[in-house]
């Protein structure tokens, strides 16, 4: 505990001071890191705590992004009001979709659970691609812009920070709560959880909906920064991203996936700026990860200490 407080204070100061130290381009990247950190941590609530590997988590990230985009572009609201409401709208839309997908998916476990989430995501991808009137089809929805001063990268960065940090705190309380403790027991031995009097499917479904809602929030935050959303965000290849981020950072710690997201995003920017072989570099990184440090970056740091 004594070591945690100064680290948290130092981290908060660094995050607050960041826009003064870097260019607008890197502020954009920092916003992307915040969004993907929230995405990876919310994904890891399922994987690292609940032992549920979702192969379709991009569905929620994408639904959140589309919900925010539609609210801003097509709901006919005043820009300020739409902007104030988009985080909630994104979470609500993603939670609703997660409730439907989760209702069916938690009936199976392991690879079958993963395949069901995968299948639902492909359905949603196809809808995003073909419902041209609503989603713009292949062209996506572009020209999203926060109103007024929020359009400035540094201001939007603070806005994203003011959403991401409390969201992460809520998730932290969740995994530390009785609900989260039982979730960890579920990863360890689902059958035994049933025989201590817990409805396993309801518990898994609740975790799935919460995880999906925060993934949706992450997607919306990112969409408003990048200014657009495309159907590809819901494609199955996009679902690999939170998996790689979580494993890269370490699934057994709460903030490990956030660190993984930061490293992933920054590496992608640096490597794809120099070469077109970013997928090759990512492949090598994943290989190194699994072979040399299966517990991820945080696991590596922990092994050093002991």
């Amino acid at each position, binding site marked *: 505990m004594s070591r945690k407080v100064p680290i948290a204070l130092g981290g908060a100061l660094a995050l607050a001071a960041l826009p003064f130290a870097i260019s607008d381009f890197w502020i954009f990247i920092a916003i992307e890191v915040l969004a993907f950190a929230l995405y990876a941590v919310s994904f890891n609530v399922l994987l690292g705590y609940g032992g549920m590997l979702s192969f379709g988590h991009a569905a929620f990230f994408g639904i959140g992004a589309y919900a925010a985009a539609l609210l801003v572009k097509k709901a006919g609201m005043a820009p300020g009001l739409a902007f104030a409401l988009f985080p909630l709208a994104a979470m609500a839309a993603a939670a609703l979709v997660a409730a439907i997908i989760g209702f069916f998916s938690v009936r199976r476990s392991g690879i079958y659970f993963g395949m069901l989430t995968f299948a639902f995501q492909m359905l949603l991808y196809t809808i995003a691609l073909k419902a041209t009137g609503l989603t713009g089809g292949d062209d996506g929805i572009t020209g999203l812009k926060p109103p007024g001063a929020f359009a400035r990268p540094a201001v939007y960065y603070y806005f994203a920070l003011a959403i991401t940090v409390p969201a992460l705190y809520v998730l932290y309380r969740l995994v530390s*709560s*009785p609900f989260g403790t039982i979730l960890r027991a579920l990863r360890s031995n689902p059958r035994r*959880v049933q*025989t201590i*009097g817990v409805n396993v499917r309801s*518990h898994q479904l609740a975790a799935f909906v919460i995880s999906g809602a925060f993934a949706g929030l992450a997607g919306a935050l990112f969409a408003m920064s990048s200014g657009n959303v495309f159907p590809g965000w819901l494609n199955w290849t996009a679902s690999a991203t939170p998996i790689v981020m979580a494993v890269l950072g370490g699934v057994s710690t709460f903030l490990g996936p956030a660190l993984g997201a930061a490293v992933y995003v920054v590496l992608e920017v640096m490597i794809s700026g120099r070469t077109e072989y970013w997928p090759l570099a990512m492949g090598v990184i994943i290989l190194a990860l699994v072979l040399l440090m299966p517990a991820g970056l945080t696991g590596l740091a922990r092994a050093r200490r002991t």
Partner: protein
Amino acid sequence: MMSAAVIPILQVTALAKRFGGLQALGGVELAVAPGEFRAIIGPNGAGKSTFFNTITGLLRPDSGRVIFEGRDVAGTAPHLLVRQGMGRTFQITSMFPDLSVRENLQVALLAHARRNWSIWPYARQMHTERAHELLHLVGLAGDAGLPAGTLAHGDQKRLELAIALAGEPRLLLLDEPTAGMAAQERIESISLVHRLATQLGVSCVFTEHDMAVVFAVATNITVLHQGRVLAEGSPAQVRANPLVQQVYLGESITSEGVCR
């Protein structure tokens, strides 16, 4: 056999379960009085596991009734049975290996207190006293901080017993509680279960292969054979039953156990 005046805590009538062509249970009858320590024995394939899984809600019976404290609970979901006061342990040791010994009990106590949906308070300090009491009861108080998966097999069984007791069951079903243990460890282990069940007023039904264990603690014995009740009675009655001796072909049942 029990007198007619006693209301059974568990009464099973005409319980049947078929898997494809196999009639695993063909009309099993059972009545367990409060305070009993009932053993269910029988050769491999007699239907003990199916019987157990049907009573505890993991399998739905094809027909028949399972009456627990006066209510028909056949086909009730396992987690609801547990909430109604019917606990169980598993043949293969079943606890939460990734969690600490203390957390194993906290999880069970949180579930028993219906705190499953509590998503804000920190769980770390919850039910620690009761967890410690239960660990003390089963002799694991010194291991509270260890990951449960690192405990020796016998200690994992004790932990599983403590997890089951955390739910304050009135009836506890134990599936092969001494499976995988060394001979002298088995008697020790079942005696602990017997002592705690008596102390806490918990009725028990257990399946067991080791006759020494059965005769050490059982108040009554039910013998299953080919999905039916072959014999039932006190240990002395069952031991003297010629049908039972036939089923355990070539094995004589003595108080020292099965001699081969």
